[in-house]
């Protein structure tokens, strides 16, 4: 009947019944099996290797080190966490968190105009320029970026030379003379450490802000103007609140990255220690893995609280 009704012949049967085809049928009937097959390798890798390692870390932080033999005692104790509370270690934590907060705030201020211009005004060719202009520094080598600042901040380097050329060297010297921020030269001062952190993490702040600003429809700004808002009022009451999730998302990166970094303070700055450096030194030269692990838990806890707060602010949509 169908053959008579259809003036065109039925399609020839294709090569449909191979083992792959039968496997496809089986998976189609049981999509959950397909899901499990897809997820199994990544879950095994991340779940076993990564989470397993995180738990190993956590476990180690409850071990302690025998003070005489230097051997790790594999018995659960809170002794190692107790060592975190010595004034010297608390000082490290305070310094790290303060620096991370300052870097984050500065990054937000520097990043905003770039992100705002790229999102609102850059069109066509300029859009590409801004995109690559942010992307290339983001992806170029971390160590090279740090190194370039060693060149810039060196006493005989370009910054001193530039300030000298315009006759402002006294300003630099006055700054370096200040206690707390200054030092022998910029490359051995807390100011230097701060500048390098700011430079290296800045793109991580620009991108989420730009993403959140790009999601603000132009008609919304026009509506605000239409309702009588001046540009600065529109900026304050419409643009800024809508960009906030982006700022928070960016701050997750800058904050977290600063908390965990141990290389920048080693290369540019005073010999004052940061959490990352403490972790590195305890596990390395000192061989005190339990204390290193306990130190590493500090940024996890801080970031956990921070992420929990950020999620409540809706920042994850801007990532």
């Amino acid at each position, binding site marked *: 009947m169908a053959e008579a009704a259809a003036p065109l012949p039925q*399609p020839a049967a294709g090569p*449909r019944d191979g083992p792959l085809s039968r496997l*496809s049928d089986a998976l189609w009937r049981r999509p959950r099996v397909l*899901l499990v097959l*897809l997820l199994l*390798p*990544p*879950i095994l*890798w*991340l779940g076993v*290797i*990564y989470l397993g390692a*995180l738990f*190993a*870390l956590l*476990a*180690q932080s409850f071990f302690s080190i025998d003070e005489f033999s230097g051997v790790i005692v594999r018995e659960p104790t809170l002794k190692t966490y107790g060592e975190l509370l010595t004034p010297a270690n608390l000082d490290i934590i305070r310094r790290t968190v303060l620096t991370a907060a300052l870097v984050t705030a500065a990054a937000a201020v520097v*990043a905003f*105009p*770039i992100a*705002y*211009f790229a999102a609102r*005004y850059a069109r066509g060719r300029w859009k*590409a320029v801004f995109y*690559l*202009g942010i*992307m*290339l520094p983001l*992806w*170029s*080598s971390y*160590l*090279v970026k*740090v*190194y*370039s600042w*060693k*060149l810039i901040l*060196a006493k*005989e*380097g*370009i910054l001193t*030379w530039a300030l000298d050329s315009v006759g402002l060297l006294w300003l630099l010297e006055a700054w370096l003379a200040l206690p707390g921020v200054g030092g022998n030269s910029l490359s051995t001062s807390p100011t230097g450490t701060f500048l390098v952190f700011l430079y290296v993490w800045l*793109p*991580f702040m620009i991108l989420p802000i730009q*993403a959140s600003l790009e999601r603000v429809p132009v008609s919304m*700004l*026009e509506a605000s103007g239409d309702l009588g808002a001046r540009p600065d009022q529109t900026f304050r009451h419409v643009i800024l609140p809508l960009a906030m999730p982006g700022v928070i998302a960016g701050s997750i990166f800058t904050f*977290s990255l600063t908390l*965990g*970094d141990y*290389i920048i303070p*080693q290369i540019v700055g005073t010999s004052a220690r940061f959490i*990352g450096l403490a*972790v590195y030194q305890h*596990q390395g030269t000192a061989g005190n*893995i339990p204390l290193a*692990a306990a130190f*590493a838990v500090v940024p996890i806890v801080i*970031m956990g609280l921070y992420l929990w707060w950020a999620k409540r602010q809706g920042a994850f949509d801007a990532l």
Partner: protein
Amino acid sequence: MTGQPAPLWLKLAAGAGLLFLHVPLLLIFAYAFTTEEQSYQWPPPGLTLRWFEVAWNRPDVWQALSLSLRVAAISTAIALVLGTLCAAAMARFRFFGREAISLLVILPIALPGIITGISLRSAFNLADIPFSFWTIVLGHATFCVVVVYNNAVARFRRTSASLIEASMDLGANGFQTFRHVILPNVATALLAGGMLAFALSFDEVIVTTFTAGQQQTLPIWMLEELVRPRQRPVTNVVAMVVVLVTFLPILAAYYLTRGTDTVAGQGK
């Protein structure tokens, strides 16, 4: 807003920001040619190509480069497989624990690198695993997954479900649909993700110091040079080469995904 030009202060601030991002990188290029050996003197007292030759003849640089390239290649391959599988599952299925898995994928880059490093280090320590090529790869692949995943999941979402249904409707089974419809549509995103993963692995130093033992990848070589400088001009040359080498995959990834709504690279 579209038609109006940007206010002057904004142009200046944005331009200054871009300069701030780029001048230090440009400086690296200048220093690669300096004749000064001992200090970071600016302006360079003279220019020379001599240090390129010296760097070229340094076996330790070549060994480090070779190790970095091998680690990056293997890690990228693993990340491509794992990231694509995960992205496919997340884009096509709704299931219990979906949020947890997306968190799990992001975690290795959301937490400071030092956490990943010390975790792996203490896990190797607990399990008595000696450091090797594979311990480095293990760490790198873990944080490279998210880069591939981010690129792939965006493209999977953009590849509308009806394309897959259309293919099946026209007689293609699941594998044929993957081969003829899904793969051609996500290929550029995967390639871009792979490029970025490669660049990320090639440049990684924080995790690597914990998983490499005595082995030297190129970034570890550089770190050694920064902490205990031996021959500064060689470091200058290597730094410049590293900048050039990482720029290529980034540019390639950009051109591969240009014109789509999600451009690669946001997910470092």
